[in-house]
């Protein structure tokens, strides 16, 4: 879909830094999050989790727990239904194990009781007999043909014979003749990299309140990125009809992709159905770490050839991602994104998903891309050092642009990579002097962005205000952006518009808040819904004036005669029209339903200065600048927030965050003390430069901005550390112990 927006639009509302509508509620504590919902007669749920990384469940004896006073229901995996879809069966088995537990923390049973302390006691009384099985948590070990099988029979036809039973799928992307093009290189560098699994680290743990009656009608309030997805998955797992399960999304305390599936909602519904009372289930932080979805750990081999004047002749990568204990497709995105920033004659990537005895992977901001780009950008940097070439010039020389056949298939349309690189080159940061033990790194980053299924209703209220109803939880300020786009299109002040998030029975289906899709797709649908309402309003006015509909136009929030030929009428404002709607045909509303494509890819470039304490191996981030193409920044504060937030999460990934497993296959650091996200004092101000290369697929030129920013930091920091110390690190995180050792050995 291409929008002919014509001449460059002079925006009145879009592009301003307006007050966020949810801000006061959030800072005063009035906003309702997942754990804030309660109901009369409510019970408290609690989950029993496996202490073993891999074991067969021989038996579960709940008799002692059942007879405890105050226990109203106990469920196991066998209380759940049999969904047709294999992916949903995997989600079910992740919510409550059947037959086998597949990772430390895997849910085995759950109870609902009249108090939290009774629920806790009941959990202790459940006796589970396990037959311990050999486990594997390292992706390279799991990749070997003789590795313990996490699950049997999950490999599809893409996986070569005689492979490890843990490889579930193989992906391949690329074009050109690798052999010929590598032969043109003056130097070929091959390196192997590893990255640790990291968690999204949202502040709000998963929480829900479920109420399911014996008539098969249910209500579910939960913290999620997609209430429609929750409805689909839960109704299948519980054997309900979708229309009978109403799901309402709470305010959300962060998700970053991690709330695009369910962990506790089907369990709470099953408990409620059994007990006949509402059940609240809230994960502890430890449960979040052990049993919600981190991203993949990875092992990646990269081979790149370059001429001595800095032209990349060919690139190849093999990517092995641990998707946890189930099939997972995230490695596909990594395989596609690895070389996306480059215009290459020959490129090939091979991606393998590998099962391990770890929690099931869930999307994390640009899922799969950061580690792939880290590996590629590290090797590009090494080649720049080899030939003593400026790393920015080398990127400019090889950058993908309009017309480039991308490494993953499509030919790029209007993209902002060159503009982003030029902005970085011109920025004072790039030429600022560095001190001893300091280094500067840079990396490009890329994300596809997504559109998808979207419904919007826009209601013109009789007092001249506007209500927008959309179906995507507001995770990054979208209510403000959506209101702004509605106000822009209608020509009314921003303050006159209120956007609310619908439950699943109030509005048609919407895809989940993911893929940086909301400002793009919901924005597009909102603009179209506004146009629909405008058409209706112009029609009403045409009838009043007794002229043709085509003779009435909409300008600056008013219906006007198209020209003096149409007649001489006073313009009527939206409020004027709304006030008399009763007499002109009843309520006025606009609608738009779409499966939006044309999302428009987004590129970013990050510059980072570090200083390394050579004695302790500690790395300090001194200066950091993000350059990113936003298409059109609807609310620049939020765009900058996304750019900064992604950079900070990437800094954590690069320096300290990691899932640490012991030899026993148990997670060692299930808490924020030893899973180290950066704290404020670890960071400098993250500077941002927004570029606006309009996306032809959106009426205002909007591109998604939420994910690209987590892609470059891993390589930007590792490259900076290399330039500060002379040591090329090939494993993340660059934790002090690892770096100190490498510096000592250098």
């Amino acid at each position, binding site marked *: 879909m291409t929008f002919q927006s014509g001449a460059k639009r002079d925006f009145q509302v879009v592009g301003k830094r307006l007050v966020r509508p949810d801000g006061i509620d959030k800072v005063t504590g009035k906003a309702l999050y997942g754990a804030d919902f309660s109901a009369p007669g409510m019970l408290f749920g609690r989950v029993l989790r496996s202490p073993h990384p891999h074991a067969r469940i021989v038996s579960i004896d709940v008799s002692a727990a059942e007879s405890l006073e105050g226990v109203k229901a106990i469920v196991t995996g066998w209380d759940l239904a049999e969904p047709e879809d294999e992916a949903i069966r995997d989600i079910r088995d992740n919510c409550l194990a059947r037959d086998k537990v597949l990772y430390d923390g895997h849910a085995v049973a759950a109870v609902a009781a009249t108090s939290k302390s009774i629920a806790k006691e009941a959990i202790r009384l459940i006796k589970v007999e396990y037959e311990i099985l050999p486990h594997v948590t390292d992706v390279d070990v799991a990749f070997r043909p003789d590795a313990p099988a996490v699950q049997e029979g999950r490999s599809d036809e893409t996986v070569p014979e005689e492979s490890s039973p843990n490889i579930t799928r193989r992906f391949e992307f690329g074009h050109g003749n690798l052999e010929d093009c590598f032969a043109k290189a003056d130097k070929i560098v091959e390196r192997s990299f590893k990255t640790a699994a990291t968690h999204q680290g949202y502040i709000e743990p998963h929480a829900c309140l479920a109420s399911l009656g014996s008539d098969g009608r249910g209500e579910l309030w939960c913290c999620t990125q997609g209430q429609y997805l929750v409805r689909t998955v839960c109704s299948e797992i519980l054997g309900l009809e979708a229309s009978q399960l109403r799901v309402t999304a709470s305010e959300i305390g962060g998700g970053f992709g991690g709330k695009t599936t369910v962990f506790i909602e089907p369990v709470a519904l099953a408990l409620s159905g059994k007990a006949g009372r509402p059940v609240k289930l809230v994960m502890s932080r430890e449960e979040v770490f052990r049993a919600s979805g981190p991203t993949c750990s990875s092992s990646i081999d990269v081979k790149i050839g370059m001429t001595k004047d800095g032209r990349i002749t060919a690139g190849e990568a093999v990517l092995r991602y641990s998707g946890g204990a189930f099939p997972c497709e995230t490695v596909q995105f990594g395989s596609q994104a690895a070389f996306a920033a480059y215009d290459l004659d020959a490129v090939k990537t091979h991606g393998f998903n590998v099962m391990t005895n770890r929690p099931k992977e869930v999307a994390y901001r640009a899922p799969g891309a950061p580690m792939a780009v880290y590996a590629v950008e590290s090797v590009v940097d090494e080649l720049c050092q080899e030939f003593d070439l400026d790393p920015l010039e080398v990127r400019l020389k090889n950058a993908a642009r309009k017309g480039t056949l991308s490494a993953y298939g499509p030919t790029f349309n209007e993209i902002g990579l060159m503009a982003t690189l030029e902005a970085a080159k011109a920025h004072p940061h790039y030429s600022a002097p560095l001190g001893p033990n300091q280094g500067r790194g840079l990396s490009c980053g890329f994300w596809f962005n997504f559109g998808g299924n979207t419904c919007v209703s826009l209601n013109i209220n009789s007092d001249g205000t506007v209500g927008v109803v959309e179906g995507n939880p507001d995770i990054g300020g979208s209510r403000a952006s959506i209101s702004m786009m509605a106000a822009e299109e209608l020509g009314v002040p921003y303050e006159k518009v209120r956007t609310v998030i619908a439950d699943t029975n109030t509005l048609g289906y919407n895809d989940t808040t993911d893929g940086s899709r909301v400002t793009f797709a919901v924005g597009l649908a909102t603009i179209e819904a506004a146009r629909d309402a405008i058409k209706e309003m112009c029609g009403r006015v045409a009838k009043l004036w007794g002229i043709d509909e085509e003779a009435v136009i909409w300008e600056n929030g008013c219906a006007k005669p198209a020209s003096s030929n149409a007649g001489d009428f006073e313009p009527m404002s939206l409020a004027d029209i709304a006030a008399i709607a009763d007499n002109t045909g009843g309520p006025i509303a606009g609608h738009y339903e779409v499966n939006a494509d044309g999302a428009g890819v987004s590129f970013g470039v990050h510059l980072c200065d570090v200083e390394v304490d050579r*004695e302790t191996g500690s790395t300090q981030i001194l200066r950091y600048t993000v350059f990113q193409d936003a298409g059109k920044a609807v609310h620049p504060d939020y765009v900058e927030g996304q750019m900064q937030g992604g950079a900070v999460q990437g800094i954590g990934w690069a*320096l300290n965050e990691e899932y640490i497993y012991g030899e026993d296959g148990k997670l*060692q650091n299930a808490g924020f003390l*030893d899973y*180290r996200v950066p704290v404020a004092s*670890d960071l400098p101000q993250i500077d941002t430069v927004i570029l606006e290369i309009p996306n032809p697929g959106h009426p205002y030129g909007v591109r998604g901005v939420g994910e690209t920013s987590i892609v470059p930091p891993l390589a930007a920091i590792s490259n900076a550390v290399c330039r500060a110390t002379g040591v090329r690190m090939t494993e993340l995180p660059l934790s*002090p*112990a690892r770096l100190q050792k490498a510096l000592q050995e250098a």
Partner: protein
Amino acid sequence: MKYVRPDSYEAASALLGEETGIARILSGGTDVLVQMRSEVVEPSLIIDLKHLDGMREIVTEDGGFRIGAAVSGAQLAEHEALCAAWPGVVEAAGLIGSSQIQSRASLAGNLCNGSPAADSVPAMVAAGAVARVFGAEGFRDVPVAEIPAGPGKTNLKKGEFLISIYLPARPERAGDAYLRFIPRTEMDIAVCSAGINLVTGEDGTCTEARVALGAVAPTVILVEDAASALIGSKLDDGALKGLAAAVEAACRPIGDKRGTVEFRTKTAGVLARRAAEIAYQRAGAKR
């Protein structure tokens, strides 16, 4: 679970002595409440003592400072004379937790929690601090170094609790310092740490020194060989090298998620050297 707020030391000691289950003292609560919430411990008795006489006061005594067991980190940091005399101890206490935690966390609580990684303990041990303990037989004074028994354990007897910590008077030309290593810049637990306290002569020669290390053994340790490396020197490079070597030799850490054995050992030496340089400068001497 019982919560009791006794009105005297004697009553508190009696309650603790009689309790058959798990008892915990509540002063700042910054460890106990976290442990309860995370279900590490479920006490049957909690005794709140912070209202008792002297518990929240800093008084000067014989030129030194008697610090009540419930005095917060924030109170320490606001006490000018204490900060001037024992900057290393005050800084160490100030590293615990966040600003919010600082308004509750105490030296005595940090000590009695029994963590080998407790920030204030190496600084107190280096300072030669003395704990005043109350029990069934009344008061007794115990060097802080003798309180920890191992991770999560103290040498206090049943019915005993701390009522104050005493930091002695300072001679001329004395300085102390504490440094810890954490992978972040705050809100963390020491991977290893070093507290140094020293006194110099008029010519800058180190005449007395105490070196204490955290998180490299089951308890905080006082390393006499490391102190010997400093005494008699003007903290020249050779002396500092000797200090680091003695520190490394004394380390017997575990390797875990927070740090490898090699990292803790090597870094403890680095920190001791850097802390010694700071303490030396605070004593008014120049290398």
